[in-house]
């Protein structure tokens, strides 16, 4: 299995051209080797993660707020900054999700799971930014798709996320989200400028170098996840509860109690 995306330009750059940062397991935080299907330290992978969240993921949208943390009409207030964000970098999309996880549910694993299993995924999912906030632990996390990952500087985005967290602490929801969208736009602009600088003619892979890689590969479809039950998306601590809005979006949804 290859990790090469082929539905892109003729000359994909190696990620190391733009970043040297390591990859880490969301479960045990151990550094991963390249193209690791399973964490050597803890055996973590997406399949294992799905067992922790035995319910259907909602489709990604600008705001996912099943617990109704944010005030009504917040999406309208964010329309302008969100439009500017998309205009700046049309490739990149962003999603804010606020949930109330159970105490034993790690936030990073949840974000990892949501990013990969939310329905409606296509190539654009690899350019997605996902901000997940857990009301239980009072933490925020940011994940990005593989395509965008090499261009993000951890410390810069961490600082932006801290600003958002500070605003949320003061219940300044609109100001926090507005500011984060603006800061994200600035960071992506800077990242693009850096990437343009890194794109040197001698870094482009020539056909002779990539002879060990197949020229055409069909992108693997994500495996159909066998969701044992429809348990609650963590908007409510009650087991088996699914909000009406999500029921409508998902269509037919078996109402079964979640398997522990």
């Amino acid at each position, binding site marked *: 299995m290859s*990790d090469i*995306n082929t539905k*892109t*330009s003729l*000359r*994909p*750059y*190696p*990620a190391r*051209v733009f970043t040297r940062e390591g*990859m880490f397991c*969301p479960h045990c935080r151990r550094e*991963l080797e*390249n*193209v*690791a*299907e399973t964490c050597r330290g803890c055996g*973590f*992978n997406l*399949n294992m993660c799905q067992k922790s969240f035995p319910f259907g993921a909602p489709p990604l949208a600008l705001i996912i707020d099943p617990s109704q943390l944010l005030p009504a009409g917040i999406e309208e207030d964010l329309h302008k900054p969100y439009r*500017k964000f998309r*205009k*700046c*970098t049309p*490739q990149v999309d962003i999603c804010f999700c606020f949930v109330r996880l159970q105490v034993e549910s790690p*936030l*990073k*694993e949840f*974000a*990892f799971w949501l*990013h*990969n299993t939310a329905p409606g995924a296509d190539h654009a*999912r*690899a350019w*997605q930014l*996902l901000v997940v906030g857990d009301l239980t632990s*009072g*933490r*925020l*996390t940011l*994940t*990005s*798709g*593989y*395509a965008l*990952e*090499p*261009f993000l500087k951890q410390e810069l985005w*961490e600082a932006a*996320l801290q600003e958002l*967290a500070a605003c*949320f*602490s003061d219940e300044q929801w609109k100001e926090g989200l507005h500011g984060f969208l603006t800061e994200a736009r600035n960071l992506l*602009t800077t*990242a*693009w400028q850096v*990437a343009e600088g890194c*794109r040197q003619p001698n870094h482009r892979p020539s056909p002779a170098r990539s002879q060990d890689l197949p020229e055409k590969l069909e992108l*693997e479809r*994500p495996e159909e996840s066998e969701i044992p039950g429809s348990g609650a998306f963590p908007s409510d601590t009650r087991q088996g509860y699914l909000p009406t809005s999500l029921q409508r979006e998902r269509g037919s949804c078996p109402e079964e109690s979640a398997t522990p």
Partner: protein
Amino acid sequence: MNLRLLFFLCLFLPGVVTGQAIDFPHPPSGQVFDAGGWLGEERRSRLEEELGHYRTSHALDVLVVLWDRGLPPEATLEDLARRVGETWARHDLWAVVLHVPDSLSRPVVVFGGRASTDYEDEDAGLALHNAVSRGMKERSTRAQLESLGLELGEEFVFLKNRAAHERTQVLAIHDQQHLVKQERPQPMIFRAFITTMLTLLAIGVVAVIHLVKRRPSDLRFPETQWRRRLGATWSGGSRIVVSLPPRIS
């Protein structure tokens, strides 16, 4: 021939007759001619002092004449006063107050001289009118004569000073314009060129600032070979986690 000579003689006869009818005495050494002492010594002294000051300081000759030598027929007091001024005045601007003592006629006031043409007729006439209005308010004729002389002096000194001030202002404006013209010898076209270049420069600076401040849009990141891992199709998770700071109540 005889008729023509007679005709010309008739034209000049009135002037000759008039001129020969007035027996002009010698002009006074000061400003007041009062052979009979009608004004009185004290009043005469005051007038001499004040009117002498106008003459020496402002080149304005104001004469007060008490005429007791008779008047030719068909000659008016104004004509006489005018002849007195033309004959006795020592400056280019003069005024004469003339009265026949113990007569029923009111004093007459005339002004003239080459400098009188420097002023607008309206301004000079107004000055005369003001002087006469104030002077004739005195009760006695002697006081009126004294007051007329003094008021005439004041009015015409004011007129002179105002005219001089206006001339000074006009000259200053002309000098300033002349200096401005001297300081800017460049032709108009050069000034227009400079103005146009400055305007274009300002527009260029504004445009540059606008372009610099304008946010870039439609930025496209290059495609990379994904570092896919942990069996995940789209994202490998992240290490970025922050905590909400404690709320300070």
